[in-house]
């Protein structure tokens, strides 16, 4: 837990110099690996582990996009701030150390969850790039936003498919009608809308960048809001 706390000041300093952001990522990665080894499983159950994993994934995936922005620190600052908020929120929750029920001990579950959080991270990067493209009226950042969201969409779709295979093997159906699944379909349809909107005149440009930003709020509600406020099989 201390290692995760130590990442916070590095993310704060990351607002100033990008190198500190990467130091924070290294510390968080060490913490995630340590927890994984300690628990003997992927540490991806409960808000503590998932929030810390999400912030680390967001920083890691931002590296190639930072390169793409050619030295402009705006993206890394935005990611530093988001990583700081996510890590601080994660630390507020107690880590889930209890053994997993047998149904969760499968590679399908692990892949499903890891890919979902990778996609959330990319949707977050897409939202940050959308903010900068709106502020600077920059078509290049908009193109980067599209790329981040497209890769995120790919991973999110794969996560849903793997989740469906797992659900079929575990519960006899690839689709359960619960609030979490419903919100997941909303996220998927929303980003389907985003990807298609780029091809239509009048939707591309500012409306598209705004859609990419708004999408991340839908993602965060699907991830945290549904789990905390609605009864679902995915509840923490």
């Amino acid at each position: 837990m201390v290692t995760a706390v130590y990442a916070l000041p590095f993310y704060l300093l990351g607002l100033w110099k990008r190198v500190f952001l990467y130091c924070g990522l290294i510390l968080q990665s060490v913490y995630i690996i340590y927890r994984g080894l300690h628990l003997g499983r992927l540490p991806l159950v409960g808000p503590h582990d998932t929030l810390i994993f999400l912030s680390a994934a967001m920083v890691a995936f931002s590296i190639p996009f930072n390169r793409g922005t050619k030295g402009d620190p705006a993206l890394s600052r935005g990611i530093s701030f988001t990583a700081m908020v996510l890590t601080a929120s994660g630390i507020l929750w107690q880590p889930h150390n209890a053994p997993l029920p047998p149904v969760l001990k499968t590679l399908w579950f692990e892949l499903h969850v890891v890919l979902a959080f990778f996609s959330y991270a990319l949707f977050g990067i897409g939202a940050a790039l959308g903010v900068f493209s709106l502020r600077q009226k920059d078509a290049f950042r908009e193109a980067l936003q599209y790329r981040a969201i497209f890769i995120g969409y790919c991973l999110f779709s794969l996560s849903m498919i793997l989740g469906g295979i797992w659900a079929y093997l575990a519960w006899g159906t690839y689709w359960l009608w619960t609030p979490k699944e419903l919100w997941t379909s909303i996220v998927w349809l929303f980003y389907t809308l985003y990807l298609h909107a780029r091809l239509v005149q009048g939707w591309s440009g500012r409306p598209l960048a705004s859609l990419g930003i708004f999408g991340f709020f839908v993602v965060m509600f699907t991830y945290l809001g549904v789990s905390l406020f609605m009864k679902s099989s995915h509840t923490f």
Partner: protein
Amino acid sequence: MAGRAVIEFFVSLKTSLWLLCLVIVLLLSGAFIMPGEKAFQSIHSMPLLDWMRQQPVKSTWWLWASMGLLIVLAANTLLCSIDSIAKKRKITQWMLLISPQIVHIGFLFMLIAHLSSAVGGFKTFAVGAEGTSLAMPDNSVLQIKGISISLDSYGYLYDWAVDVEYRDNGQVLKKERILPNKPVFLKGVGVYVKDLRAFPNKMVLLEVSREPGAIWALVGGILFMTGTIALLVLKMKRDEIQRQP
């Protein structure tokens, strides 16, 4: 003239966008209705369409409306794909032309999967102890031969296994072991362990179900991912080429 207008409406990408917006709004409504309505507690007890027919429309209107819109969206997807191939068939990068259509076909397969399961699914539950025999839909008999439950030192359920035997006219058809994430199947009907009890007697809650859409969903998922990944790679390559001086 009217026919042409209908076709133009269906092959328009703007139609797809507005349909997607409407489906999102309907599902959002459902997401807020569902947790507050008791009716939804029984949604997994039978095929979706049978369940929807039995429930009051005030609870399910958004599901009916979503289903209707998805049918229109399916027609729109199919016609958009045909139109796209017809218009761009002479372009040299045929992979760039074909990849989105593979994605669309994958999506249509997934819709068929949901429809198929909603109409032709089957589900029933049974509680049994070791030695209990259950009649299966194909008139064979499933006998529970053994229930093994492992608890760790803290009392948490660590692992379990249920040994079963399929019999027909007294003859053993096959012996199987149900494990976590490993159900058993006979003639497309799956047997799943939903719950177990270790004390006072070992008991198991079994679900016997058939999900006819599962194979369609799997094929759809594979097609969808193949097309999406191909499209992503091609677009990234194209962007790299365009960026080179």
